[in-house]
């Protein structure tokens, strides 16, 4: 390091008094966090660029995409349906018992439909798949990274992004809306069964509430959110696996980080979508 006579060499942190040393450490951590965030955003941007480039190799990602669609969609179907069934029935049950005398019972159907379609259908499907599918993606890709299988792919002139990342991304983006359709239908259906057969609401009241103020955009809104959640799950999970550090510990840490980042990203996207599009949901 060049020493300039007009700029004296900075003192070591350990030579400062304890209070000043603590303050320096705090600011240093903040600076590292900020720099680390920007670094991560920058790395994501490069990853997006690489994914964009990978679209030029359909022969590589095409067959694998179908296999991932089966893994993400078909294999997740039972879990999605079970979660949606419980959520729909609980919404109907809770709403019914918050109704005081004089309130129309059709509101139970309305509340069930709105909560399932607009919010809980896509959101819970996304969160459940973030745990089930996202963690699996990170672990798979991370293991391939630490066992140098990705390096081997590059050696064989295979684009690892096109072979590993893009199929998962496409499959998740396509299958999350499909699973959300089932989640919405099963959630509303279970809410209907719970409302009509367990709490004594008349079927006509529930149906009337289901149809009240319905607009097709509500379904589009639900599927749009599901698509974004699918993209977020596959993107962040794949990225964390792709940059996993060596060793089982590195894969485990990447998996945990992926699940946390994906869950937060889903909630942020949910809020952002509601902020931007909720005004258009008014019928």
């Amino acid at each position, binding site marked *: 390091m060049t020493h300039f006579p007009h700029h004296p060499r900075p003192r070591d942190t350990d030579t400062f008094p304890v209070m000043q040393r603590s303050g320096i450490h705090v600011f240093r951590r903040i600076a590292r966090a900020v720099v680390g965030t920007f670094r991560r955003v920058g790395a994501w941007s490069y990853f997006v660029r690489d994914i964009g480039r990978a679209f030029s190799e359909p022969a590589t990602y095409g067959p694998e995409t179908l296999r991932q669609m*089966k893994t993400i969609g*078909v294999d997740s179907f039972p879990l999605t349906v079970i979660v949606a069934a419980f959520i729909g029935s609980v919404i109907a049950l809770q709403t019914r018992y918050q109704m005081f005398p004089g309130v129309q019972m059709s509101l139970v159907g309305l509340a069930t439909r709105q909560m399932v379609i607009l919010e809980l259908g896509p959101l819970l499907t996304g969160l459940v798949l973030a745990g089930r599918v996202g963690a699996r993606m990170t672990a798979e890709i991370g293991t391939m990274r630490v066992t140098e299988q990705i390096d081997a792919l590059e050696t064989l002139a295979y684009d690892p992004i096109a072979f590993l990342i893009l199929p998962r991304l496409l499959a998740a983006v396509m299958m999350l809306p499909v699973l959300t359709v089932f989640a919405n239908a099963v959630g509303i259906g279970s809410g209907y069964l719970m409302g009509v057969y367990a709490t004594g609401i008349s079927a*006509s009241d529930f149906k*009337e509430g289901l*149809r009240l103020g319905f607009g097709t955009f509500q379904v589009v809104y639900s599927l749009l959110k599901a698509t974004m959640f699918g993209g977020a799950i596959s993107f962040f999970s794949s990225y964390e696996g792709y940059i996993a550090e060596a060793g089982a510990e590195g894969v485990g840490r990447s998996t945990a980080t992926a699940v946390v980042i994906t869950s937060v990203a889903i909630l942020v996207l949910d809020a952002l979508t509601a902020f931007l599009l909720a005004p258009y949901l008014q*019928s």
Partner: protein
Amino acid sequence: MKRRDEVSVGILITVAVVVLLVGVLWLARGGLTSGYPLYTRFAWGQNLKQGQPVLLAGVNIGYVDDVELRPDGFLNVTLSIDKQYHVPRTSKATVRAVGFFGDVAVALTPRLGGSLAEVFASGDTVPAGPPEPGVAEIMAHADSTSVALNKITHAMQVEVVDAGGLRDLRSAIASTATLAAEMHAVLQAQSDNLTATLASYRRVADAVDTGVVDSTLSGLRETSRHMSLAAARLDTGATQLNDILARLRAGQGTAGQLLTDTLLYRNLRNTAASLDSLLTDIKKNPGRYISVHIF
């Protein structure tokens, strides 16, 4: 990739598309088969929205399919009616509140006693009836009623309680009770007197000789008969007198002539005057008129 995986993915996506289409159609149109449309028009501010029920005489027969806001202060409302129901032509459409929280339905109400045979055809417009009072109007009315009741209560508090009206009422009731007791005593005394009077009357009535009464009544009847005859005769005499007087007025007969002929009156006066002058002259010159010849 296994063929089985492709089939399972294909089935999942196909079923999802079917569920999506059927679900959206069912929620948006109330079923896979759409009903027939009817139209109506309401003023702004009805809180109408797509999906609200349409009631015919209280029965749900369809739903509000579309609400179009017009700049002239009206809403064009499209109703989707189930094909199994027919709306009588005498029906009027009104927006009816169906809950406490602004929930409304479109009510189609046929006119009482009107024909039910003629029905609206698809695409017809149902005339809007007079708006029914909503919850806000009812609450406002209840509020004004409550205010009036409060005023009445306050006035009663002032007049009845604070100003001693209740005390006065109690004393008035006590006075009335006393008065009633006194009236009761008076009536009791009067009743006793009346009983004694009736007893005396019975005794007097028992003492009357009925034979004397009968003969007296017979005499009274005879007298009455005679008086009737006398009256008849008087009536005949009056009629004849009237006849005579009429003839006199008409100048009939000597007496009539005397009464009505003015010339005769003048002649008689002239005669009297001549007789008077004759007598005067006789008194002056008796010898002119009287010559006594003894032999």
